[in-house]
């Protein structure tokens, strides 16, 4: 049985890296692997070029006509959406995938889009397909790390099901070279407030008030925390860096992962390493974020972003590393987990994740709204195995933990 994986947005920076990853995983035309990657994009010339480079078939279509999109997905088992801005592509492609009965995976980093898609998770369950949004770095990486940490805590009996945790904090290191698409996403994510999860009160289906994890917003700059992003094998002592709370999907995937493990927390927050100067710029950005709705501001922003390169070059891709730090505290603020995951370059790791998740949702016949870690279902010690032994998705990743 050969499964068809359609990559939409193959001509973009991340899309072309995913296509390359597909080729490396044997998903080209005559590779004999169970999965065949088919490329798709609006621009016929461009997609043909990428397809020839990777020895893959290709399709040319836009997303203006939902019925047409659905027809294009008829023989597809899973679609990977790498076409940003996801605000304009994700909903249409997800609905088309549901109609066509194929799984949907994307590398979205936009919180609003994520929350919109999660409404369709229920539909996905009913259609017998899976939706995995944000299956890229950083949400995918932090989700894998959190999943492994919770499994460890549960298996060591440090916590039990139905327990409440104090705080779950995820922090990501600064990205050195943004792709143009990521820069646009970052500009859109800049708000006056950031999304966090708090334990609050909500109503159940019978209208009764219960404790639940609810979304909450805090002003930009209000939440800051110090994390140690440094390589703990190479650096002695702590090397704290200031990080500011940010609108990251990681917060939402963390909530799903906690609930899946039957756990609750008083707070779930995601941070981005800012440093002393960066935090001022970030807070200023937050103050003026409301101006983003003005057309001339948007035009100006787009014009500035257009000067950016497509993304990091091959050398940066090979050289740069990215760090995700996870801290879990109990209700008495005792730190239970202080882990650090070092991944390859953000874009490279995103490509690894997207391809692995897409293959896994088809293989595992998964359904519903699931997070990347749920889709991958890695062994509990996957992060600690040698590269040669572990799943291809984790190649180049290193986990470190500080004794707590």
């Amino acid at each position, binding site marked *: 049985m050969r499964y068809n994986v359609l990559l939409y947005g193959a001509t973009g920076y991340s899309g072309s890296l995913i296509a390359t990853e597909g080729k490396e995983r044997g998903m080209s035309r005559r590779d004999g692997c169970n999965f065949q990657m088919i490329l798709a994009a609006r621009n016929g010339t461009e997609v043909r070029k990428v397809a020839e480079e990777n020895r893959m078939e290709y399709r040319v279509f836009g997303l203006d006509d*939902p019925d047409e999109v659905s027809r294009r997905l008829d023989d597809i088992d899973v679609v990977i959406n790498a076409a940003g801005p996801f605000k304009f592509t994700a909903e249409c492609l997800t*609905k088309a995938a*549901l*109609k066509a009965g194929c799984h949907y995976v994307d590398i979205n980093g936009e919180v609003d889009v994520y*929350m919109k898609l*999660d*409404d369709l*998770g*229920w*539909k*996905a*369950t*009913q*259609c017998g397909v899976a939706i995995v949004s944000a299956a890229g770095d950083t949400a995918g990486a932090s989700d894998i790390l959190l999943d492994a940490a919770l499994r460890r805590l549960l298996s060591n009996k440090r916590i*039990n099901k*139905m*327990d*409440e945790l104090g705080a779950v904090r995820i922090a990501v290191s600064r990205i050195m070279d943004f792709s143009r698409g990521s820069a646009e996403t970052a500009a859109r994510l800049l708000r006056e407030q950031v*999304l966090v999860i708090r334990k*609050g009160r*909500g*109503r*159940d*289906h*019978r*209208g*009764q008030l*219960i*404790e*639940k*994890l*609810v*979304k*909450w*917003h805090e002003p930009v700059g209000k939440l800051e925390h110090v994390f140690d992003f440094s390589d703990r094998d190479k650096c002695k002592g702590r090397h704290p860096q200031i990080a500011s709370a940010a609108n990251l999907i990681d917060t939402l995937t963390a909530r*799903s992962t906690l*609930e*899946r493990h*039957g756990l*609750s927390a008083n707070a779930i927050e995601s941070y981005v390493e800012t440093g002393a100067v960066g935090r001022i710029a970030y807070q200023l950005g937050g103050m003026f974020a409301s101006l983003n709705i003005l057309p001339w501001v948007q035009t100006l922003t787009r014009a500035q972003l257009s000067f950016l390169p497509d993304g990091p070059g091959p050398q940066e891709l090979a050289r740069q590393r990215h760090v995700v730090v996870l801290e879990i505290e109990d*209700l008495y603020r005792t730190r239970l987990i202080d882990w650090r995951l070092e991944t390859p370059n953000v874009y490279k790791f995103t490509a690894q994740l997207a391809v692995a998740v897409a293959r896994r949702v088809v293989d595992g016949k998964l359904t*519903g*709204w699931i997070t990347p870690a749920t889709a991958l279902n890695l062994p509990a010690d996957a992060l600690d195995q040698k590269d040669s032994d572990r799943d291809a998705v984790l190649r180049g990743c290193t986990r470190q933990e500080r004794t707590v």
Partner: protein
Amino acid sequence: MMARFWLATFKLDPPTATLSSAASPLAATDALGWAIEVIQENEEIAVLFSTVDDPISPGKFQCRIGFANGSKSCSVWRDRGFPLVDAIIKFDHDGLRVQSPCFLDSSELEYEAELIVIDGAMLDTAQNTPAAALTVSYEQSQQAPDYAFPATWIKRRQVSWSAKRDNLIAMPPTQLKFTMKPLRLPSLAPFKGGPATPQAIWTGIINLPNWPPEFSYEPAVRASRVDTFGVPAFRFEDVEVLGFRIDLDKHGVGDDMALAAMIERLNFHLEPADPSDDKILHSGGTTSLGNKISGQTRGAMSDFQYRPATRTVMLELLRYGKMKLRETSPPLDINDFQSQHELLVRILVGRVDDDTAQAHDPATFVPAIFVDNPWSKVLGRNVQGFDKRMADFCVRHEGDLTALRPDGRLPGGNAGPEELGRITRIDLSNNTGKRPSGLTLLEIDCPFETFEGWDAFVEIDLELALGTTALLPTRWRQSDFSEGEFRRSFARSAIAKTLKGFRSIQVSPIGGPQLRERWKAETTWITGTFTVDDGAHIAWPNGIVGLTLHAEPSAPDAWKTLCKLLGIKGKNGSISLPSGSWYRMRCSMDLTIDDGLE
């Protein structure tokens, strides 16, 4: 429950239609025989038209269409997979008569036509002989909208019903005389007018089987909704509305939980995925620190819930002059139409997300609805998520209460439809042949002859209405919205949308608790859009209308909850609505049911 039955099997010429469909349900070319079974329990009678595997020695029946005169039992039969329609049925020693609305030659539904008359000695026991055991089962299928694509597909689940039959008597197959009109819908072919001699006839006592039936282990299968129920796009012309705004702050007892309970089904998505989670939440189970926390709900949508947007609910009496399909669906085309009266309770709901200060997606939810057209009831219950019950809409005529026909005319009359305001009482239907039933739901005191401006309709400028909603307080007004989440933009959008075109949201499947439990995993929202044509007219007559609501024990729960909300503790209670709290509207509109993916 014991009932008597009369069962006859026939070998008939196969019909010309190649496939069984909603229009020709008995036209299965692979059928070896056909059967008519009449089941009578006291005054309630059901007539089942089935295909049968062997007319001489039958083993398996499949009821393709049937009729029942018990309004409630008709719905119960349908829940169990028997596609029955409400009808007036007479059954005695001399024959069987079934009268139910049907399409003949005319484009208008005939409301008083006799579908089939069978004359002959049907229960003559003089020459009868005791018969050996008759072990037959009905192989039926329950159906409900597909939970992912409710406008495109329906789901069917096989059920098998086996009933024990006692006192079995085999009657000699004597010739029967069939009298039938040329039916377009529903077609009873291959049965046709003229003499017919059954292959075998049995009578006796049948022990009606209890729930649950034997469910097939096969998963539910998908079938095209269009093939079974037509295209889910409807056109309603000459619609007249007599609407009553019931402000529960003014007339009610302020029981917000009861109001929330009326829309509880809309929040089915918050029910725990695992029943044990429900126990944890509601039986005192707690977290390690003693707090109750929500577990995983179905899908990923625990972030929002539907809530009543206002404490003003609408009680509306409607007459649909012409209900049509917007696309041809043989044997009906876009010119064929039917009419009906409708009494409904309409609640404005909004979607409230965990993290937003404003509700959004205003829609109307109808928890209780009563109609007098059996085909509308079938469609509403089976595929549109409306829990429709049959009701008698009565006027005073020559001193007596008389139930109107669905087209607003008096029974047997050819004069024009009665004034809608003349309807003085609405009874929950009990036996289709005995109307009115006396199970009163609502009495309306609307002496419209004395009202100034009863017919002073003014055309609504729908575009203007969108801009200046204060001018058009038709259904809901800004002042009706007291909670923060529903004020301002939600209210503005809701007021405008509920006039020009409004979203409707219902939950499927409809049926008894056992059916709903069986289909729990497939519960779904049915969303639709009503779009009102330009040229809608509204009138605000001067006068006080009195409403007396009856907490009829056999009424649906939502109706009884409304009575409770109004503080009705005994059998009934009255409220008076001055000018401005009620209105008249005339319009035409379209309804489109969608899959929720548009």
